[in-house]
């Protein structure tokens, strides 16, 4: 019986380790590619170890897309978006979770239903709108459209439902204003949920592709996904450079995720259960 358990454990570890390696290998491959020449990824046998071309690849990449500028665009858009959207969505979620008002259920249902509508159904009118406002190829064209993000509202509402209403009422009796209650009493106890929602929003905006591809038209405004896709569309592709770009675009998000993964996974777990 004991032996049986040990074999089972070993099999379990083998299966999971193979799975984890498959999961992680593409990251490793991108990092290796970033440090080698374009051809080494296709040499026989392939180069599986880091090479010495990293600086050269980064220099070439910088010449093609301007790493600093693209990094700034991506960070500026994603951070501004995350801060604003988190604020707007949490406020709305608070109203849905803790107030009883006319139209509440209808508005909430419309938000939920809109999650089923594909983004594609909005991009053409959005494009025409941005063109009419002369906002094409600007930061606000990318930041504004999804600030009221239904899934984020839903996620925050689920978490806010658990906040004790009696605390809010007690504060009201003590004469605290509504904003003060929201900022000083409710928000501080929502940190894990806010972190999870913030990661979700940041990932969404950092990785977003189709709309920035349509809305942004000059190299100096491109975000990482758009810049990388133009690099990859050239007739003669420098793979070392491309892999350096992919690696640079991925590292910030991995660090960001590893720092906050505990909250993120628990926040995801929390919302999926309810």
């Amino acid at each position, binding site marked *: 019986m004991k032996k049986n*358990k040990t074999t089972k*454990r070993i099999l*379990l570890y083998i299966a999971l380790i193979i*799975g*984890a390696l498959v*999961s*992680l290998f593409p990251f490793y*491959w*991108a990092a290796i*590619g970033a440090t080698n020449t374009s051809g080494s*990824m*296709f040499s026989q*046998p*392939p180069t599986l170890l880091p090479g010495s071309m990293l600086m050269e690849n980064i220099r070439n990449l910088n010449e093609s897309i301007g790493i600093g500028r693209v990094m700034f665009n991506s960070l500026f858009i994603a951070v501004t978006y995350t801060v604003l959207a988190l604020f707007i*969505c949490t*406020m*709305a979620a*608070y109203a849905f979770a803790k*107030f009883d008002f006319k139209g509440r259920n209808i*508005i909430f249902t*419309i938000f939920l239903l*809109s999650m*089923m509508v*594909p983004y*594609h*159904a*909005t*991009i*053409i*009118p959005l*494009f*025409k*709108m941005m063109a009419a406002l002369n906002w094409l190829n600007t930061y606000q064209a990318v930041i504004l459209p999804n600030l*009221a993000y239904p899934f984020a*509202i839903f996620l925050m509402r689920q978490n806010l439902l658990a906040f004790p209403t009696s605390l809010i009422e007690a504060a009201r009796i003590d004469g605290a204003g*509504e904003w003060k209650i929201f900022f000083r009493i409710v928000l501080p106890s929502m940190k894990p949920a806010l972190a999870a929602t913030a990661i979700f929003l940041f990932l969404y905006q*950092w*990785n977003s*592709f*189709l709309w920035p591809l*349509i809305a942004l038209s000059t190299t100096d405004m491109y975000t*990482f*996904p*758009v810049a*990388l*896709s133009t690099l*990859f569309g050239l007739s003669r592709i420098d*793979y070392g450079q*491309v892999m350096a770009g*992919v690696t640079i*675009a*991925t590292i910030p*998000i*991995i660090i960001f*995720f590893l720092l906050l993964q505990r909250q993120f*996974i628990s926040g*995801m*777990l929390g919302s*999926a*259960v309810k």
Partner: protein
Amino acid sequence: MKQKTLVPYMFVGPAVILFSIFMAYPIIYSLILSFQSGQGSNLEFTGFDNFQRLLSDDIFITALKNTFILLIVQVPIMIFLALIIANLLNSALLKFKGVFRVSFFLPAVTSLVAYSIIFSIMLMNDGVVNQVIAAVGLDRIPWLSDPFWAKASLVIAMTWRWVGYNMVIFLAGLQNIPEELYEAASMDGASKIRQFFSITIPNLKPVILFTTILSTIGTLQLFDEPFVLTNGGPSDATLTIGMYLYQTGFRFFDFGYASTIAYVIVILIAVMTFIQFKVTGDQE
């Protein structure tokens, strides 16, 4: 008292205003556009012409077929793999759960463009995948240049990207299944595999439904992966409805017809969601 009734509107107001301008208005406007045709801004009402045009549009039919093939093959494989991994990760025998969880989840944080680029480099004719295949003595696979294998490449790449994401959702669901059910089953001598099919799956049904619907919605809108990985090729074998919409709208600037395609996606999503609810039946 009067003032207090205004408070909730103050909180919900910004979201409602932004939503109306950037979501509700475009959705309605594109419905109107779907009944118009013309180039750029010279549009006129043409009734159901666009919808009729769809039926005889071979490229659209191809895109529709491709999207459904990807949907029918990829979603079940991914859901099943995610279920198995979630189940293994939930095992009491396992240590370092956190490390495994992060390893499996990491693909889900990478940008769709970045991972599509990595996969297309790995899957090239003399790329690393084919070198491994050749090293074990098998024939190289024309991953990106053969219509069948190009679809297979998309399925593999998408599965890699999304398994971990669904796994986390299943892990959450697993925490809600009472331990006693498994204990009772073990005492009755049910094997682990038997327990998986007769306890785990039935108890996770609502969660499986949820992830299946999300994945269906995602696949029907598929754009980034075929755009980067295969560019719709070879010879439209991986052209999806999402890509066709982009080409129609932003390469040929036929906004009316592109909106019609967008609404086809809306209708397909509504129908598929409805069917999935019906098939799994009952609750919520």
